[in-house]
């Protein structure tokens, strides 16, 4: 049985574990004298390994480790009344930049209850903190930049919209005014996507919110009597890529304007319904009205710019356009089927 002795010899394996620890580590007696220090500690804090054993912590180096708060925390740890977990402190050395340290300390629990020793792990987090700060700064800068770009885009769209409306107010011809107002609606339809994008995450546009806003805006500027004409929006919870939403929005804009202008010449009441449904990669957009229906054959008007826009964008979205009679009214259906596209992709003889 070992008898009590004033000199206690640590097991060589314990000392070796400390000395070769990858993490800067100190092994201290209860009175904070160094029993061993890792090579990594000596290297990190510029201390000659040969000079340290037996010294008090506060006598290390040029005395930079004589930090009252650290000493009292370590004393408290040694007496068992505290435990140091991720304690942060600044290490100040003459002619060197202050280093930010994170200290963890605990009693070495190896069964020798009468012989208190402390394991103190010291991590230099200065560089990691600086990198994190830089990252934060870059993220902030990016957010500011995006805000700036959005602001510029919004201002540019406002200039375009303002100029178009000023022209519309000045021209004498009703037809020219109509064209200018349509151009204004198209600009506003694209602007509404921009507004949705700046509030949505991940660059996707929630269609329900977007098409609702769009139809409200079209209705507000084109419907004189809200009791007479209305636009209903029935859209599922799909979110789509920004460029897809621009195309869908422009199609809705053209077809809704067209219905408002031509479907209800003398009707006491009229309703336009915009609906969108999707499942997997297939989707269907329907713009229906309960108006007088589209004239066919010779009575059909020459296709205008609006028709051209709808056809071009439908093709772009790899969709099929179908116009049918609703008795009363007209139904325009734009359908995209992923399967149909695979077949269509096979070249056919002209």
């Amino acid at each position, binding site marked *: 049985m070992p008898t009590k002795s004033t000199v206690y010899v640590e097991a060589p394996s314990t000392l070796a574990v400390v000395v070769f620890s990858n993490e800067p580590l100190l092994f201290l007696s209860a009175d904070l004298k160094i029993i061993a220090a890792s090579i990594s500690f000596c290297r990190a804090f510029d201390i000659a390994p040969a000079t340290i054993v037996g010294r008090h912590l506060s006598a290390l180096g040029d005395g930079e480790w004589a930090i009252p708060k650290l000493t009292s925390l370590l004393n408290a740890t040694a007496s068992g009344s505290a435990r140091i977990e991720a304690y942060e402190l600044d290490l100040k050395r003459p002619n060197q930049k202050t280093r930010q340290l994170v200290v963890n300390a605990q009693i070495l629990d190896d069964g020798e209850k009468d012989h208190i020793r402390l394991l103190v792990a010291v991590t230099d987090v200065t560089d990691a903190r600086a990198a994190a700060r830089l990252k934060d700064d870059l993220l902030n800068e990016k957010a500011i930049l995006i805000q700036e770009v959005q602001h510029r885009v*919004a201002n540019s769209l*406002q200039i375009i919209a303002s100029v178009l*409306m000023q022209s519309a107010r000045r021209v004498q011809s009703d037809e020219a005014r109509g064209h200018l107002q349509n151009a204004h609606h198209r600009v*506003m339809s694209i602007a509404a996507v921009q507004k949705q994008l*700046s509030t949505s995450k991940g660059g996707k546009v929630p269609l329900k919110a977007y098409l609702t806003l769009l139809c409200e805006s079209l209705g507000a*500027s084109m419907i004189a009597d809200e009791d007479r004409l209305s636009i209903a929006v029935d859209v599922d919870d799909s979110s789509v890529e920004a460029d897809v939403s621009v195309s869908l929005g422009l199609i809705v804009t053209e077809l809704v304007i067209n219905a408002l202008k031509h479907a209800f010449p003398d009707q006491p009441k009229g309703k336009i319904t915009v609906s969108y449904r999707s499942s997997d990669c297939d989707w269907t957009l329907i713009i229906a009205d309960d108006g007088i229906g589209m004239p066919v054959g010779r009575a059909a008007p020459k296709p205008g710019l609006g028709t051209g826009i709808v056809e071009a964008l439908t093709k772009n979205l790899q969709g099929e356009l179908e116009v049918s009679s609703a008795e009363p009214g007209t139904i325009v259906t734009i359908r995209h089927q992923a399967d149909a596209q695979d077949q269509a992709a096979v070249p056919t003889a002209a």
Partner: protein
Amino acid sequence: MKNGRAVVLVVDDSALIRMGAVDLVQSAGYESLEAQDADEAIRILESRDDIDLVFTDVQMPGTMDGIKLAHYIRNRWPPVKLIVASGQAILDESSLPLGSRYFAKPYTDHAITDAMARLLAKDSAA
């Protein structure tokens, strides 16, 4: 009011947007004034007492942006109605004086004239 018509001061640093807003105000039947920043707007407000509504941009060079200008006007000329427009899509309306209206750019003419009519109607009803 001037000759029975409401007077609206348009504040925007962009000449084209200001021109469009002035045209919009006049087409709605109001008297229009214009300033290119907050300082000029305050000088105009100090020089006359017939301005009913200020329609201001937010991001402007000078000592105050549109939000500060709105608060300044509310404190110094409480009866003047306020409409604020900004390129920023989301602006916390609580950062504006109570009772003022906010619109994201690009705004529709209809939305602005409608807001002006409502704010000015409240005024005459009071």
